[in-house]
C-alpha cells in the first residue's frame, strides 16, 4: 500500500485569495499528460500534501468539465492549512493523491429541480457540482443557489457568484448573518432564509447542502419541516481522513468508511449511521 500513499506532484498555477482565510489553489500536474488522465466527478476529494508539513483532505472545488486544471479551496484552520496559507504560492509544488470517495448522484438528479444550500467554505464541494450542472444546463430544470456566510467579506468565489447572478437561468440568493451597511439583500441564517425567502418547490426537487456541521444540522431540520423526503436531501460529510483508501480507520462511522462510501450521503443514509459525525 505504501506506493498508493505516494502523491503525484502538482504545480500551483494560480492562487486566488477568496476571503481573508480562504484561498483557492488552481493546480495542474507537473508531468505532462497526467492532467488529461485525471478524471473526477463532483463531490470527490483529494489528499493534498504540502511536502514537509503534512497531508490534508480537501474536496475538489472545480468540475472536470472545465479542462486543464482543478481547484482546491482551503480554509486556514489547522497546522497544515496554516502552513499552506503562509508558504504556498504560485509556481510552488504540492503532492496530490486522488481522487477518492464517491460523488454526487449525477444520474438521480438529472431532470430534477436543483436547490443548492451552502454555508461558508461549504460552497466548495457544491461549486464543483454547480459548475458541472451549468455546463450541462439542459439536463436540469429550475436551479436555485442559496449561499450564506458570516459577513459579506467571508463569501468565497465572489467573481463566480457574480457570473451566476448574471446568468438568467440561475436563481441566486445570498445572505449574511449580521446586517452590514453596504449589504442590501437578505440578512439572517441560512435555514431562516430558506424558509422565508427561497420557499422551494418540494416536488421533483433535490437539495444539495454543505456547510459547517451546525448549519447542516439546522438546514436539514428545516428542509424536513418544509416537507422534503430524506432521500432528496444530499449532503457531504466532514470527517478526519488520512489514507483515503479505506484502510486507516479514521473515518469509520459504524461500519461505513466515509472515504470510500462517502463523503456524499443522503439524509436517509445518514439516519442509519450511528450518531458520531
Amino acid at each position, binding site marked *: 500500500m505504501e506506493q498508493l500513499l505516494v502523491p503525484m506532484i502538482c504545480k500551483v498555477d494560480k492562487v486566488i485569495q477568496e476571503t481573508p482565510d480562504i484561498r483557492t489553489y488552481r493546480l495542474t500536474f507537473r508531468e505532462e499528460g497526467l492532467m488529461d488522465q485525471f478524471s473526477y466527478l463532483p463531490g470527490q476529494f483529494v489528499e493534498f500534501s504540502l511536502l*514537509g*508539513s*503534512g497531508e490534508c483532505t480537501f474536496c475538489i472545488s472545480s468540475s472536470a468539465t472545465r479542462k486543464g486544471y482543478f481547484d482546491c479551496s482551503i480554509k486556514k484552520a489547522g*497546522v*497544515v492549512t496554516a502552513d499552506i496559507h503562509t508558504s504556498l504560492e504560485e509556481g510552488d509544488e504540492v503532492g496530490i493523491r486522488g481522487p477518492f470517495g464517491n460523488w454526487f448522484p449525477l444520474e438521480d438528479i438529472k431532470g430534477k429541480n436543483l436547490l443548492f444550500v451552502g454555508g461558508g467554505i461549504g460552497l466548495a464541494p457544491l461549486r464543483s457540482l454547480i459548475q458541472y450542472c451549468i455546463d450541462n444546463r439542459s439536463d436540469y430544470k429550475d436551479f436555485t443557489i442559496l449561499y450564506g456566510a458570516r459577513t459579506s467579506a467571508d463569501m468565497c468565489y465572489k467573481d463566480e457568484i457574480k457570473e451566476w447572478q448574471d446568468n438568467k437561468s440561475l436563481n441566486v440568493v445570498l445572505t449574511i448573518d449580521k446586517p452590514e451597511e453596504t449589504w442590501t439583500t437578505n440578512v439572517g441564517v441560512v435555514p431562516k432564509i430558506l424558509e422565508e425567502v427561497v420557499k422551494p418547490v418540494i416536488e421533483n426537487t433535490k437539495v444539495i447542502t454543505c456547510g459547517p456541521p451546525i448549519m447542516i444540522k439546522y438546514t436539514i431540520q428545516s428542509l424536513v419541516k418544509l416537507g422534503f423526503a430524506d432521500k432528496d436531501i444530499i449532503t457531504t460529510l466532514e470527517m478526519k481522513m488520512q489514507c483515503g483508501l479505506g484502510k486507516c480507520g479514521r473515518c469509520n462511522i459504524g461500519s461505513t468508511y466515509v472515504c470510500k462510501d462517502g463523503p456524499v450521503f443522503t439524509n436517509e443514509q445518514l439516519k442509519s449511521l450511528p450518531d458520531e459525525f
Partner: protein
Amino acid sequence: MNYTKQIQDIAAKLFAEGKIDVFVGYRMNGFDENQVPVLITDPQDVSKLVFTDKSVFNLVNYLKTDHTRRKRVGIVVKGCDSRSLNLMLTESQVKRENLYVVGICCEGVVDDAGEKMQNCTDCMVPDAVVSDEMLGTAVSGSGTLTYKKNADIVALAEKPLTERAAYFEEVFENCIRCNACRHSCPLCYCAKCCIDQETATLYNGANTTSAAFHALMTWSLHLAGRCVDCRNCEKACPSHLPLHLLHKQNESVIYENFQEHLAGVIPEDRGAFYKYSLKDPDDFIM
C-alpha cells in the same frame, strides 16, 4: 496489608453524608488476585472496594479524566500516590475542597509475580503525606528521611560511557511509541503534549529510535523534580522498558546536588526547578 473493610466503611459513610459524587478505589478483577481501579458512583457498589498489597496503580491519574472533573471525589492514596496528589494540588490541577483523601500507611505493594516492587523496597515516603483520614500505623517512623540511591542507577553510572550508550540505545530501540507511559503518568496532565505537535520539523509520531529518544528524554525532563516514583509508566509499558532509570537519575542529581527534599513531600512546594540556592554547584560551568 488489608484495608478493605475500612475503605468500604469510609466510602459508604461519605456517600451517606453526601460528601462525594464518586469514589476512586480498587476492586478485584474477578478472576485472579489482580485488581482493577474502579470509579464508584452508586453507593450500592461500595462493597466492591478492596485494598491489599495488590493495589498497585496510582489512582491520582483519574483526577485528570472526564469522570472526575468538577466532581467531589473520594480517593485512596498510598505514600507515593499522595506525593503526586500533593503536586497536583500545588499545580492547581485539582481543588482540595473537592477531595476526600483516604491516606494509607503503605507497607509496599507487589507486582504480578508476587514480589515486592522495587520502588517499594526503596520507598522513602511510605505514609500518605496528604489525607483527611489515615489508615494503618505509620511505617516510616519519626526522624529525617535518608535518601536511598537506586541500585540500578549506581550500577549503570559505574559502567563506561560506551556501554551505557549501548544499553540505552537498546532501550530506545525497543520503545514502540504508544505513549502509554505518558498517559498513565499522574503528573502528565497537559491537554496536548509538546511531543504530539504536528510539526514535521520535530517528530511526528513515527516509531524511530531517535523519535523514541526525543519523546522519552523530553518526558523525563518535564518530570524531573516532580516524578514521585509510583511506576505507573513502567507498569503501562508494553515492552517493559526500565523507564525508572531516567527518573531516578534526575531525582538523584537533584537530591545530591541541591539538597532538595523529594518531590511532593511538602505541601505547596513546587519542586526543585521552581526555586534556587546561591550555593548550587557551579563547577560544571566555565
